[in-house]
């Protein structure tokens, strides 16, 4: 008030008014505003929110009486703990800048937070009601988890403690798995989008059996990405079962309601996704024990049966029969020998008489009785008429031969 009055009186006193160019005036306004409002904190409602492709955010902050243009430059966007939306009440800190060409002023916001947890809670409840009505939380849509996953996808921050907690538990419980990490930012304005993209990409990639999506504990603002619609829709659309693992036991997020299983913490998710190998070892041992027990029973049962068979009449009967057969064979053999030897003696007798006949026919025996054989030129002479005087002849006696001449 006083300033304005003194300005007025200055003007009155000075007869000569300095004419300013638009540029000069704007420069003065800019100077006044930018030095006078170099750091302000205001409360208002977001409207006309635009997330430009350049990465800057443009919107207006308003209350019932006024509106001010607002901008969040790309470099500051990552420091936001939530994605601004129209209608959200926020407290923003920044400085006033003047855009000379357009003669506009705006607030260049360096930090912004939603007004109180109440406001976020409201947004949360609103989205929850909406998605519930659409059936995103329905039990029948929930997919069963694999009993023994071999490939486990994890969507979380690469540097967060949550990842290390999960790996630690997986190594202890069931290390025979492949863990495939899809690193994402888990807080800040882009986090929701990144998480949703990771879920979609894992589905395109395909080669995992189950997915854990989560982060460690934090404030409601820190966990906000898991309350975003884009994440909820990605989880709902996923063909791969998803375990949500956000914050602590008391934190419930939209992601928890849509996911196929909610784990109270990332560590709990790792416990839920694989079975304990020591319990499994017991199961394997137990199965093996049953197998060997049963097979031993089968074998000893067979042995027992064989033993009983050996003792039984029916098994011994064949032996009796066999003995009888043996006896019969012995008898047959004996009678056969008898037959054969008889036949031999018969043959022997026959040959003896033949021998006698042969002996009787032997010409030498005749010669022994004083007969001779006369041969002429090697041929037996049967008649005296076949010889003439002075023929050379050979006479065979029983004990030798001599030559002579027919006289």
């Amino acid at each position, binding site marked *: 008030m006083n300033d304005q009055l003194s300005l007025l009186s200055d003007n009155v006193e000075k007869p000569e008014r300095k004419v300013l160019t638009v540029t000069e005036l704007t420069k003065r306004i800019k100077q006044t505003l930018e030095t006078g409002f170099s750091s302000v904190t205001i409360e208002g409602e977001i409207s006309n929110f635009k997330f430009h492709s350049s990465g800057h955010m443009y919107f207006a902050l308003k209350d019932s009486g006024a509106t001010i243009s607002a901008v969040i430059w790309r470099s500051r966007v990552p420091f936001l703990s939530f994605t601004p939306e129209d209608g959200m009440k926020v407290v923003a800190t920044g400085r006033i800048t003047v855009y000379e060409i357009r003669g506009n002023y705006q607030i260049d916001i360096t930090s912004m937070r939603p007004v109180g947890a109440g406001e976020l809670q409201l947004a949360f409840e609103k989205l929850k009601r909406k998605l519930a009505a659409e059936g995103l939380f329905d039990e029948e849509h929930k997919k069963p988890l694999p009993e023994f996953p071999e490939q486990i996808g994890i969507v979380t921050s690469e540097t967060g403690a949550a990842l290390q907690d999960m790996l630690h538990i997986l190594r202890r419980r069931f290390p025979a798995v492949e863990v495939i990490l899809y690193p994402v930012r888990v807080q800040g304005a882009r986090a929701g989008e990144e998480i949703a993209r990771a879920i979609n990409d894992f589905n395109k990639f395909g080669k995992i059996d189950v997915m854990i999506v989560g982060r460690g504990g934090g404030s409601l603002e820190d966990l906000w990405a898991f309350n975003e619609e884009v994440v909820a829709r990605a989880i709902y659309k996923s063909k791969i079962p998803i375990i949500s693992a956000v914050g602590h036991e008391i934190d419930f997020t939209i992601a928890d309601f849509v996911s196929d299983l909610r784990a109270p913490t990332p560590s709990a998710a790792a416990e839920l996704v694989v079975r304990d190998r020591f319990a499994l070892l017991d199961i*394997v041992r137990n199965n093996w024990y049953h197998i060997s027990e049963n097979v031993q029973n089968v074998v000893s049962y067979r042995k027992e049966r064989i033993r009983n068979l050996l003792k039984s009449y029916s098994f011994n009967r064949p032996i009796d029969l066999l003995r009888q057969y043996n006896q019969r064979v012995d008898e047959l053999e004996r009678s056969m020998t008898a037959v054969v030897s008889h036949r031999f003696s018969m043959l022997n007798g026959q040959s003896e008489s033949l021998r006698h006949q042969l002996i009787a026919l032997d010409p030498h025996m005749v010669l022994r009785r004083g007969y001779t054989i006369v041969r002429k030129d090697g041929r037996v002479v049967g008649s005296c008429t076949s010889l003439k005087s002075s023929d050379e002849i050979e006479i065979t006696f029983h004990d030798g031969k001599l030559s002579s001449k027919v006289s």
Partner: protein
Amino acid sequence: MSSSKREKDSKHTFEQSLKRLEQIVEELEQGEVPLDDALKMYEEGIELSKACVEKLTQAELRLKKLSKDMEGSFHLIEEDEEPKTEE
């Protein structure tokens, strides 16, 4: 599921091995198994138990990172180093 596509070539998955073990127990307990079959089951049981125990006691967790190139195809990057723990 996707697991059936992989690591199928030579070895059974843990799940398949365990299921088969349980199946053998069931068959044996249902009684009257011919001796030959029982002995075959015994041998198979030894192999399966061995495979299961090995998997449970000897396997090491493999950590990989999924990355997407500009054409949109995926690659797995080995994370050979034990990542540092923040404690």
